[in-house]
Every structure is written in C-alpha cells, then in structure tokens.
C-alpha cells in the first residue's frame, strides 16, 4: 500500500538506505545482548544445585497469580498500580515492539493473526497501553525524583543513591512510548492531510494528542519525525534491551523465571546442599555459603531479579529497629558481587577467584540479625527468597567457627543438655509438679502411653513465666477430655532455631533424638502451644504423626462442643491478637486463633494495622533471645506501641517467645499498667467452664 510518508524500509538519508540501520541496529543489539546474557548466565552454571524442576502445576499457578496478575503489587497501592500499568503496558506492547523492528525491513509486515479485526482491536489497546505507560512513568519520575519515598533511600553504608538509575530508565521507557506514538501519529497525520486512509488512532491516547498537535505540519516535517522517531525507537529499544541485564531492570527479563521457580512450601529450610542426603553430609568438605558460587543458581537469579523496590526492607522488623540488616541490600550487594566477579567488560576477561563473602560483601552482624520472620519474602513481588540465604550464610560461619560468643553458650548447652539454658534434663517436667491431682500430666514412656502428645519444648518447660502456658494448655486438654501426655526428660529442644542459625548437625541430632522419643511414645497426634516447635515438627521433621497448634485444637473442640466458655468475659478491656511469625506467615494460620478469641463471650477484639501476613515480628525466638544485636530499640517496643495505637489494652499472643518479648517490651517502654500481654492458652483456660 502506498503511503504518503516513506517508510524506514525504503528511505534514504544522505544517500544511504536506512534499511541498513534497520538491520544493523537489531543485529548489533541482539549480538551484544546475547553476549551480556551469556556472561550473566555463566555464574549460574557454576552455582550450587537447586531443586526446582518439579511441581510444574503449582508453579504455573504461582506464575499466573504473582507474575501475570501482579498479585502482590497492590500491597503498596500507588507504586503497585503504577507498576501494574507499566507491566501490563509492556506485555501488550511486546507485540508492537516486535512488529516495529521488522517493519524497518519489511514495510508491510503485519504480525501473524493481527491482519483482520483482531489487529484493529490490538491497535486500540496498544495506543492506550503506551499512553498508560507514559502517564505511569511520569508519575513514577515525580515520586522518585521529588517525593522520594523513604524506602528507596540508600543508607550511607550501602553506597550511592539509586535515584538517577531509576529516573534514567523511566526516561528510556518514556522515550520508547513517545517515539512510537510520534512514529504512528506522523504517518496518520500525513495520510489524513491527503485525505487518504489513516491508521485508526485511539481517542485521547498519546498518539491521538500528537496527531492533533502535528495536524498542520508539513509533509517534510512529518517525514523527518517519522524516520527519526523510528530509529530513535529502534536504538532506544535495543539499548534498553542491553541495558536491562546491567542493573535493577534485569528483573524485566528474569522475573518470569524467578517467579516460576519461586518457593512453593513455607516454613521449611533448604537442605545443606540439594542432592546430598543427611547420611552423606559428613563427607561434604564445606557447609553453607562462604563464597559466591556456594549460592544456588536460583539464589543468584534472585540477586539478578531484585528490582530495588525496598518493600522487603520496609517490612523488615530488624531494619525498623536499625539493626545492620536490610534485606534489599542483601540482594543488591549480592548482585553487585556477581557483576564484579563476572565482568562483562573488557570482553574476554578471565573470571577472578572468588573471595569469602563474609567481611567483604556481608557483615557478620548483618547476617546474625535476622529473626527469619519471613516478612521480606511475603512482600517481594518477584519471589526473592531471603531466609534460605541467611541460613546458608550462617551455616558457612558456623563451619568456620565464627559464631558470636553470646550464641556459643546456648549452643553448647543445647548440645549437652538439650535446652539453651543448660538446665538439667531431669527438671524438664518440673512445671507439672504444682498441678492439682485431677490435672496431673502423664509422662509418656515405658510405663504410660497416650494417644496425644503435648510437645512442650524448652522455654515452656523451663521459664518460670512460660510454664504458665504449659499449665494452661494442660488444663485445656483435660477439659476437652483428651488422653494426653508429655515426653518429660526425653524431650529435647525442637532445634528449630538451631537449624536456622546454621548449626545443622546439632539440629539433626536433636531432631533424631526427639523423633525416636515421639515415635517411641506411641502417640497418634501431636499438639503444641509453641509455634516454633509446631513449625519444626511439621516442616523440618519427617515421618511424624500429624501436628497441630493448640489454637487449631481448641477451635476444633469448641466446634465439636467439647470445650465451652462460661459467662461473660467482658471487663472493659480491648484485646488485640498478635500473629506470631511461625503460626501466621510461615503456616498460614490466621483465623483459628481469632475464631477462638471471638468465641469467648464478651471479649472485644481489634486488629492492629500490621496484622496477618503483615504482622510485625516481636523480636524472635529460640536462640535469638541470646543474641546481642546492635539496635536502636527493641522490636517488641515498636509492637506494643502498635497495639496501643490500635486502641488495645491487652496483647494476646499464641507463642511463648512473643509473650516473653512483648512482656519485656511493656516494661522497657514504661507501659506497665497501660498494656498487658497474655497467651491464647491462658485466655482460654481462664474462661472455660
């Protein structure tokens, strides 16, 4: 079809057929891009193995929900909507971009399938898409450059600010949108001026405005615009393509893969090395991540995929109290370390020998500060995993012996006595001694058996205050008529934090001894009031009878009528439920505890702003109680302030560690008399008939 304007495929500039550029630019672009991608792929080939080629059905499901439908983006509403606009725009415009490249060579190219009415519909969509993307980019530039939301800020210790990179890319994208629209608009104007058939341009789209703006331009002007905008788009497009793998916009390419391969299960920890069984561990020369190549290929892909959005660090409780940990920079520093060790330029450089990561890329306190609460992983729209990396780095430090003195003592105590305080094994069941005869607790073993095992774990067994939770739980089990018992001195610490602090072999020792004791007790089901123990038994241990948390147990008993509440619990106090990390985020149990509380007559309950999967970690459990972090204040203090803000007088928790941390925080924050804390089991025990 003859057009008024000469298409790029047929044009000449200074006697040179521009079609040459239509070839050269894409070819150069693809060659350079492929080279860069090869350099980017190299470290992944040297990385540790990972086990992701499985469960494809679930992976596709996650891909559709999180990648395609951008499910996590709106959690930060404005940024989320902007991103969805840009993302949707990119997806829609991918066809147009491909067509444009080919149009530079074959001027009548039509994308397969878009010949007829479908093509007209598509053109409408693409016009709006481009407009939407430009609007989003402008708003984004204002946010980045002027508003400067806190979570994008780069703390001094991590180097230069990233705003210029962000704005630069937004400019590139804007250029793409503008040049494509001008390219189209200029042709449409030329056609209209001659009264010929012009491409239908969507009303009120960017191109539409350009069409109006150029309505009176001369053909010569239009021709220049048409050609210039084409090659501007072409160059920008391929420049952008090659620029993507050089920084945070690599996620544009890697996100689909990163989300596809992302973690499916929660609450568990990766094995020391995929493909190595427990029995083979003794033969491994080195445990954990000490240098870059010890990360798995998926973890390296995570580093590539970080979009520097800062949502993880914004949710990170350690970051909030100014511990030296910012998950975002775990990724950014990891990514930069890969870039540094596998340089693209000069071409042909040999890859240098990898250095230890600790002390160079990461600091020890940075890695020990993490409470493994999972807020970062919950938030990341790209499916980046943090906990496994932290655990792997800790495994490396444990292997080298660089463990803080404050943690060495409880680890030794766990090894010798099976609990981090080093208290005597034979006193583990002493908390049952004060119970009245009718509430006596059986110790399972050779002499006594029961169908249900109440797994107490260390803090509830030995801590004066937490023993109350044990007694309350026993009372509840008795009231429900449950035939239950405890393991007594045969029980060892579940080892939940031992594993997460990198002492894998000690964890396995505790796990094996507990497993023997549990299986030896003959119990058919397990109940525990400790979410760390619950998570360990459910997700870290194998081949155990089914495990429940006591909140789930209580709800079942309420629903079946075995547990009833008496009278009216109202006392004018307002209660709020604090979601423990290992019950909530890691095991998706949010409703059972709330339903239990709501079943108590007269209890007024509110939710804090940060609740459910946005719950704010109390400070951590297990070994984290012993670690001495560098921080400006305690996580618990921030949490009780949140409770006060929600109008609550009492914080109800369902975890002994949460209770310890919150009660301590109430004292430290000077809120005694204004705020209380209580465990769910204690609440229930107080109110059952």
């Amino acid at each position, binding site marked *: 079809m003859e057009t008024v304007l000469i298409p790029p495929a047929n044009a000449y500039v200074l006697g040179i057929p521009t079609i040459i550029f239509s070839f050269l630019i894409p070819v150069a672009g693809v060659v350079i891009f492929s080279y860069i991608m090869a350099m980017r792929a190299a470290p992944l080939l040297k990385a540790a193995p990972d086990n992701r080629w499985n469960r494809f059905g679930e992976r596709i499901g996650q891909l559709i929900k999180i990648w395609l439908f951008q499910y996590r983006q709106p959690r930060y509403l404005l940024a989320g909507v902007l991103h969805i606009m840009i993302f949707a725009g990119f997806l829609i415009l991918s066809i147009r971009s491909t067509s444009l490249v080919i149009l530079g060579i074959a001027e009548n190219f039509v994308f397969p399938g878009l010949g007829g009415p479908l093509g007209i519909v598509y053109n409408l969509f693409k016009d709006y898409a481009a407009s939407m993307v430009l609007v989003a980019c402008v708003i984004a530039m204002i946010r980045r450059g002027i508003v400067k939301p806190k979570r994008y800020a780069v703390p001094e210790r991590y180097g230069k600010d990233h705003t210029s990179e962000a704005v630069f890319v937004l400019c590139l994208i804007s250029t793409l949108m503008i040049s494509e629209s001008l390219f189209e608009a200029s042709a449409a104007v030329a056609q209209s001026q001659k009264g010929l058939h012009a491409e239908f341009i969507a009303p009120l789209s960017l191109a539409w405005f350009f069409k109006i703006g150029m309505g009176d331009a001369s053909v010569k002007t239009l021709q220049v615009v048409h050609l210039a905008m084409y090659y501007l788009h072409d160059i920008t497009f391929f420049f952008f393509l090659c620029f993507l793998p050089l920084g945070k916009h690599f996620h544009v390419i890697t996100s689909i893969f990163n989300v596809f391969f992302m973690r499916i299960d929660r609450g568990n920890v990766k094995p020391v090395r995929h493909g190595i069984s427990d029995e083979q561990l003794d033969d491994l020369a080195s445990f954990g991540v000490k240098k870059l190549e010890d990360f798995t290929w998926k973890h390296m892909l995570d580093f590539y995929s970080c979009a520097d959005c800062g949502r993880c660090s914004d949710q990170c409780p350690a970051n909030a109290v100014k511990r030296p940990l910012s998950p975002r920079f775990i990724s950014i520093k990891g990514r930069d370390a890969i870039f540094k060790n596998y340089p693209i330029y000069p071409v042909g450089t040999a890859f240098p020998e990898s250095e230890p990561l600790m002390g160079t890329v990461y600091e020890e306190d940075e890695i020990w500060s993490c409470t493994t609460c999972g807020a970062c992983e919950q938030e990341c729209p790209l499916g980046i995993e943090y906990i496994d990396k932290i655990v792997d780095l800790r495994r490396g430090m*444990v292997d*080298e012996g660089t463990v803080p003195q404050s943690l060495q003592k409880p*680890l030794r105590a766990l090894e010798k006595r099976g609990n981090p305080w080093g208290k005597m094994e034979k006193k583990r069941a002493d908390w049952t001694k004060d119970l009245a005869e009718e509430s006596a607790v059986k110790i399972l073993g050779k002499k006594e058996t029961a169908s249900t095992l109440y797994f107490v774990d260390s803090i509830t067994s030995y801590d004066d205050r937490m023993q109350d939770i044990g007694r309350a739980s026993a009372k509840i089990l008795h009231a429900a008529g449950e035939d239950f018992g405890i393991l007594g001195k045969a029980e060892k610490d579940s080892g939940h934090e031992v594993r997460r602090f990198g002492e*894998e072999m000690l964890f396995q020792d505790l796990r094996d001894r507990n497993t023997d004791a549990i299986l030896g007790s003959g119990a058919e089901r397990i109940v525990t009031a400790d979410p760390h123990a619950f998570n360990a038994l459910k997700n870290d241990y194998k081949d155990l009878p089914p495990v429940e948390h006591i909140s789930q147990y209580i709800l079942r008993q309420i629903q079946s009528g075995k547990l009833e509440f008496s009278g009216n619990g109202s006392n004018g106090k307002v209660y709020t439920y604090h979601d423990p990390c290992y019950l909530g985020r890691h095991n998706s149990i949010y409703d059972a505890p709330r339903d239990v509380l709501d079943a108590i007559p007269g209890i007024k309950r509110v939710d804090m702003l940060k609740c459910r999967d946005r719950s704010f970690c109390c400070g951590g459990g297990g070994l984290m109680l012993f670690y001495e972090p560098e921080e400006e204040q305690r996580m618990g203090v921030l949490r009780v302030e949140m409770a006060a803000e929600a109008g609550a007088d009492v914080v109800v928790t369902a975890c002994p560690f949460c209770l310890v941390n919150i009660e301590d925080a109430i004292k430290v924050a000077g809120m005694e008399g204004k705020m209380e804390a209580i465990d769910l089991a204690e609440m229930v025990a107080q109110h059952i008939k």
Partner: protein
Amino acid sequence: MEILVCVKRVPDTAENEIEVNSDGTGIETDDLVYSVNEWDNYAVEEAIQIRDDVGGSVTVVSVGDEESEEVVRREMAMGADSGLLLSDDAFESSDGKGVATILKGAVDKGNYDLILTGAQADDGAAQVGGMLAAMLDLPYASLVNSIEVLDDKKLKIGREVEGGNQEMSEIELPCVLSIQTGINEPRYVGIRGIRKVAAIDIPEYGTGDLGLSAESVGESGAKVKRLDYFVPELGEGAEMLEGSTEEIVEKLIELLKAKGGIK
C-alpha cells in the same frame, strides 16, 4: 612455634548444680555434664591464632581418664594439630605438684617453645602452670591477657592485675604462661567439627612412657589431700525484708534514707 596447651576436663559449673554427695567424699556427679575448662579453651584459641600467624604446630595434652579424650578431641576439632592423653591408674588423686610432674613428663618428650595452661580450673588453685614452669626452670607469667610474638626468642605479654590494669612485660622463650579469660574470642566448635576429627589417633601415655615413678605422682606422691567436701553452715546473713512489694519498698526507703543512700 611449637606450642603445648594443657587442658582439663571439668564439670560445667554454669550448667550444673554442684552439690556435696551424700557421704561428703566429693560432689554429686550423676547429672553433671563436663566440658573443657573455660580458661584452657581460651588458651587453645590463643595458641591456634599464634600458630596461624607465625607457623608451627599446636599440641593439646590432658591428664585424666579415658573420658578426658573427648576434651582433647574437641580442642583438636577447634584447630589444634595433635593431641596427647596422659592416663594411668597411678595418676589418680594426684595433687597439683603431681599433675605438674606428669605434664613435665610429656613436655620432656617433645620440644616446645611455648607452654600454655588456663589461669585456673574447677578447684580454683591456679597452680599447675607455675609449678610446671619451676620444674622446667622456665620463665613464667600468670593471668596473661595479651600475647604479641616479637621474634622467635621473645614475647611481649600483658598480665591482668588489680584495678583492671595491665602489666606489660617481655618474656624469653621457651616459657610457660597461664591464660586469663577474655584474651580472645574462642571460635565455635560444632558437632560437625568433632565428627571430622573422630578418627584421628590420640596417643595415650602412662607412667612408663613418661619415665615417672609411681611415688612421684598419684595418691602416694600427694602432699595435699582432700579430706572431705562440705557446705559451710550459713551465718545469720542479711535481714530479709518481708511483706508486699509496696511494704518492702517503703521499709527499704526508710533504711536507705537513714544510711545516706538517697540524695
């Protein structure tokens, strides 16, 4: 530098309840857990750091029964190059001089530049290091909290003295030093580390191997013997304040005011 570190297997005081046994002959051992004496552990870490700095090897030695082997092995897992166990029925009930005599036997079989012990152990005697140095006629310093290797003939050491001060001296090699806690931050040794050294042989020496006579060690050689263990009768002690917290606080404030405690 060839370094020998003397370590002892002791009950963990922090994690145990130390009680006199029913007939007063010793302490109740049923529920005790044992580990390496904390001061000795600092000494081994220091030795390893010196070796990593200037080269050489670290040997760990312990006087005890078969169970002391686990302690020697743990220190090897920490990074010591080799271990020795000095074990013989004749060694039982040795006093401090006896233990030093036994250790001297092991020292004489080697060629050590530096011998380290912990500043004290569970009996709080803090004696073996000093005695060993005198038997070997080597210079000695106790309560060492810093070591700097000046050259292969001299060390610059710091001793912890009263008032939190540090006494600096230069000491000639070979010498004996007893090490105070806090000199360094000992590295962690986990189960994995111990498994890695599980198969290494630890030679065991008795009186014959060390060229010792039975009279110089053990019960027969001891001039200091424990007669019994007991818990002293408690005196009157403090006047315990009773009542509700409010009442106690009130009484206390009265007393403090009287004694000039509240300004």
